[in-house]
């Protein structure tokens, strides 16, 4: 165990000698997925609760497909499926984009998490007491002002506990990226496993690192909730 750690700790955490690997790559994937997926989900959630069918139905079909199929298959469609199309290989830009495993993994993760997050946020928007919206209307607020000052601030806060689960699920989905040759934590563990045959130690080390990051995420969200959800606990103690 100690020998493995001595030899491979840098690969597990940061770099395999040439490029970012292990935990660094996992965190990069996680943060990039959240950074692109979250703003996208806010827009989609507003469309999902819209009164207009033309906006609501396509978003529903999108979330239905991506929540009903495994992320691994979504990644396979994007990574090997799309790239196998003649159409894509003939376009230099598309060809270059889909050739890179990281781009494919990121695209799959963003599309997947946005589907779940859209439903979480749409649920939070629907759960806003209608009195708050009526009050905003009585103040003569425009649609845009209502979303900006009343609906979104309240909904995003209320969605926080569910969103923290989703972030942990994204972290737990990142190892799937190794199938697209992204050198993240599980890829390092697999390489260590095939180099040393010490399976338990190789995968166990990765498992412990994942667990530590999960606990860290839970801790961060608990602090955020204490700060931003304080208004829901007035009078309880």
């Amino acid at each position, binding site marked *: 165990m100690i020998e493995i750690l001595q030899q491979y700790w840098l690969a597990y955490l940061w770099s395999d000698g040439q490029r970012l690997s292990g935990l660094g790559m996992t965190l990069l994937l996680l943060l990039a997925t959240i950074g692109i997926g979250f703003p996208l989900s806010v827009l989609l959630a507003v469309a999902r609760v819209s009164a207009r069918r033309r906006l609501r139905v396509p978003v529903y079909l999108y979330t239905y497909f991506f929540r009903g199929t*495994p992320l691994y298959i979504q990644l396979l469609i994007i990574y090997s499926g799309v790239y196998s199309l003649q159409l894509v290989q003939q376009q230099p830009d598309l060809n270059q984009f889909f050739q890179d495993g990281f781009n494919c993994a990121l695209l799959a993760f963003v599309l997947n998490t946005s589907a779940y997050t859209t439903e979480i946020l749409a649920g939070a928007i629907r759960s806003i007491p209608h009195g708050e919206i009526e009050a905003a209307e009585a103040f003569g607020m425009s649609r845009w002002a209502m979303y900006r000052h009343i609906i979104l601030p309240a909904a995003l806060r209320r969605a926080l506990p569910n969103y923290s689960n989703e972030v942990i699920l994204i972290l737990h989905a990142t190892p799937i990226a190794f199938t697209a040759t992204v050198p993240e934590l599980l890829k390092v563990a697999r390489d260590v496993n095939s180099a040393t045959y010490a*399976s*338990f130690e190789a995968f166990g080390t990765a498992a412990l690192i994942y667990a530590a990051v999960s606990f860290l995420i839970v801790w961060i969200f608990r602090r955020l909730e204490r700060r931003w959800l304080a208004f829901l606990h007035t009078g309880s103690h």
Partner: protein
Amino acid sequence: MLFYGYEAQIIDGTWMTVKLSLLSLLLAIVFGLLGALCKLSPQPLLRRLAQGYSTLIRSVPDLVLMLLLFYSLQIALNQLTDALALAQIDIDPFSAGVVTIGFIYGAYFTETFRAAFLAVPRGQLEAAAAYGMGRLLTFRRVLFPQMMRFALPGLGNNWQVLIKASALVSIIGLADIVKVTQDAGRSTMALFEFSFLAAFIYLAITTVSSLLLHRLERRYNLGVKEGRL
């Protein structure tokens, strides 16, 4: 030919996925019930053991645990057979898949069942005790049926997650939907179409499951009056 003559393989792969998911579900429910009972037991040792199981397993990605257990189980078994001077026993990927998925999702079911047990009103148990029911009878006739009503929504969610996680077993070498469609796609140069086919098979399974779960929930909610807004 719509599937380039791969219909039989695709049906076999689908059956493999369904079989694996159902067996894993069964095992996960057993692990979950045991875990929940341990977590609610007055024995501190059992409680701590169950707590460790559910916390640790739920904080590590399923794919990582799958590979960890898949490789380590075989190595541990080899050491055991070596020590006993027996011939090597190879774990087949199917049993390994069922055991690992069942063990992993048992941790999620532990939490579902624990919350559901706690949701059964105390008075029900006291009433059972007042009727002179023993512990086993109370569990079978009073606690379990009422607990199921509270557990069903969570159970349904976990089942949907479990089916989707089963797509990962192709990584440990099982001929499930994913592996079959990828092989077919590669040899016919139609990877895109076959990957989509795999997605739609999963979509069909999850859609049918959610319809069935909805009916089950109605059945277990018989005689419960719901407040209307």
